[in-house]
């Protein structure tokens, strides 16, 4: 669809000489691309009547005349010249219609000039017009209701019904629905499914996003999602309570597979030497974990980089009698500490061609956009048994799993820089590796098989809500930070360009 200016402009445009005049004046006075044109501009850009520079300096397009707002109108009236151009933004003015006019052909010439400009002038690009397609026009006409997002609006918050011990699923869904980048992906309908309908989990999630953000407040039942998970991740099927972390990993895995299956157009993205999976799940959740194995004899380092999408952090004492970690940063320090592999696990060193004792250190090579930390609060009993045997104590509990309920403090803003791999090719500019907390999942109860999961999610930057199945209540940041924490979700604060 093209915009056609007034009839006076049409007759003006008929002569190609006139169009050239416009093009030249626009190039010299509005865009001002070359140094030669600068000279021309400087000598001429003042009002011919009052000798001032403006305001709103215009050029007459039918004779050589420059004038400020007042004088160009007077000139046009007395000389009967209707076309003039504003020299700040390059708008055409018709004095017979008494207004500025828009015309696609003129816009195209102006745009061409702008693109050839050597220096970028911000003001020239700020007033671009948007041409909606006919579909968009129809849609805008039929949907006239305005939705205003205020701190009190509940858009994006939906309770989820518990379908018999499905709180593990509900809390993960809440966390996923409030992942900012994932939300943007699905609400802009980036998923073009070519697979069978009703079989694709990505489509189901896409549908869920629409449900969450359409403004309705009735709780949702996720039976379709649950069914899809059951068919694609068999180990989670059944009505027992499952581990939320396990469900999260399985969901990401199925989503990743379905993305690749249903969108054959996706091409692997090459970042440096490593090619990365193009699917949205891996783009958001997967980072690179670097593992450096250092041979104790020759100090040779062998480095491998593996994709990592969840961080499981140990909470028990480092050694028997050692100090257990008390904060997330403690856990991460422990995770990235150099570890001596011991005599029993000698590794073939490629440098000295023999099996040697070595140390291993894990660091972050590339950071994912969303980091999920899993605090290992459930400890398998057999580990505890050997531990207690050495201390000559008998076990009190008969459960298979034990829960570690130590307080682990976690910050709202987390800086991952100390846990990054250091390489020689680092750019001199420090990168911003800060992450902000946007979802926390808590487990209430004593063991992995019983208990209840709830989620805290962040909404509209600074507001927190507690999602307990179908009940959603407002929460404070303090409440969130004081909660026990089982799964912690952090989102990158500043997104870099690839």
């Amino acid at each position, binding site marked *: 669809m093209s915009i056609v200016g007034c009839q006076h402009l049409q007759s003006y445009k008929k002569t190609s000489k006139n169009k050239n005049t416009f093009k030249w004046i626009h190039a010299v006075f509005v865009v001002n691309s070359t140094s030669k044109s600068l*000279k021309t501009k400087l000598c001429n850009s003042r009002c011919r009547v009052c000798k001032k*520079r403006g305001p*709103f300096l215009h050029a007459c397009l039918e004779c050589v005349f420059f004038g400020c707002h007042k004088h160009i*109108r007077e000139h046009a009236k007395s000389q009967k010249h209707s076309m003039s151009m504003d020299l700040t933004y390059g708008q055409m003015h018709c004095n017979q219609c*008494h*207004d500025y006019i828009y015309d696609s052909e003129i816009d195209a010439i102006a745009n061409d000039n702008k693109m050839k400009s050597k220096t970028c002038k911000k003001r020239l690009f700020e007033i671009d017009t948007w041409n909606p397609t006919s579909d968009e026009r129809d849609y805008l006409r039929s949907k006239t209701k305005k939705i205003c997002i205020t701190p009190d609006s509940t858009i994006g918050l939906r309770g989820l019904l518990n379908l018999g011990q499905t709180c593990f699923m509900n809390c993960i869904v809440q966390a996923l629905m409030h992942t900012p980048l994932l939300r943007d992906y699905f609400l802009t309908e980036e998923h073009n499914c070519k697979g069978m309908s009703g079989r694709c989990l990505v489509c189901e999630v896409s549908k869920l996003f629409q449900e969450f953000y359409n403004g309705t407040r009735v709780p949702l039942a996720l039976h379709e999602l649950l069914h899809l998970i059951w068919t694609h991740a068999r180990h989670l099927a059944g009505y027992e309570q499952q581990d939320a972390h396990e469900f999260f990993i399985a969901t990401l895995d199925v989503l990743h597979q379905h993305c690749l299956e249903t969108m054959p157009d996706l091409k692997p993205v090459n970042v440096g030497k490593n090619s990365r999976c193009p699917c949205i799940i891996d783009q958001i959740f997967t980072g690179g974990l670097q593992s450096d194995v250092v041979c104790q004899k020759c100090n040779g380092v062998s480095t491998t980089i593996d994709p990592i999408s969840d961080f499981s952090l140990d909470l028990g004492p480092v050694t028997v009698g050692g100090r257990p970690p008390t904060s997330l940063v403690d856990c991460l320090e422990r995770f990235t500490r150099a570890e001596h592999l011991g005599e029993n696990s000698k590794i073939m060193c490629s440098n000295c061609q023999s099996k040697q004792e070595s140390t291993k250190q894990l660091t972050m090579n590339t950071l994912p956009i969303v980091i999920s930390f899993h605090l290992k609060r459930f400890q398998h009993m057999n580990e505890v048994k050997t531990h207690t045997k050495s201390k000559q104590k008998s076990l009190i509990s008969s459960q298979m799993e034990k829960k570690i309920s130590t307080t682990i403090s976690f910050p709202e803003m987390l800086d991952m820089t100390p846990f990054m791999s250091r390489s020689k090719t680092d750019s001199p500019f420090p990168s911003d590796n800060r992450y902000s907390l946007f979802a926390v999942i808590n487990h209430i109860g004593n063991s992995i098989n019983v208990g209840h999961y709830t989620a805290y999610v962040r909404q509209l930057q600074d507001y927190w809500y507690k999602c307990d199945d179908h009940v959603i209540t407002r929460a404070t940041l303090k409440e969130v930070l004081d909660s026990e924490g089982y799964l912690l979700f952090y989102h990158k604060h500043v997104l870099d360009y690839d």
Partner: protein
Amino acid sequence: MSQEYDAKINLHLDINHGLDRVTELVQTRLIECGWRDQVRLACRKAITENEKHIPTVDELIATVTPKARSMVPDSVKRELLHELESILINVDKFGYSKSF
């Protein structure tokens, strides 16, 4: 004398892109302090108030300009003044007196 001085200043502003820089600065400041949004709102109000006739750009400029002028924050004016002062002080130092 004053005419000569005017011409000199003008030339100075042009050659060093002084005017361009100052305009750019003022534009940035006005956007930052929310002035532009206020003016946009005022324009919108002026358009919606007049139901019978949609004002032309010229009429809009005439009605909104006085209001918009008064809305410019003092801090922006002060900064502009300071900037212009420092340009004028440097006129003689650089001595751009050659004419085209």
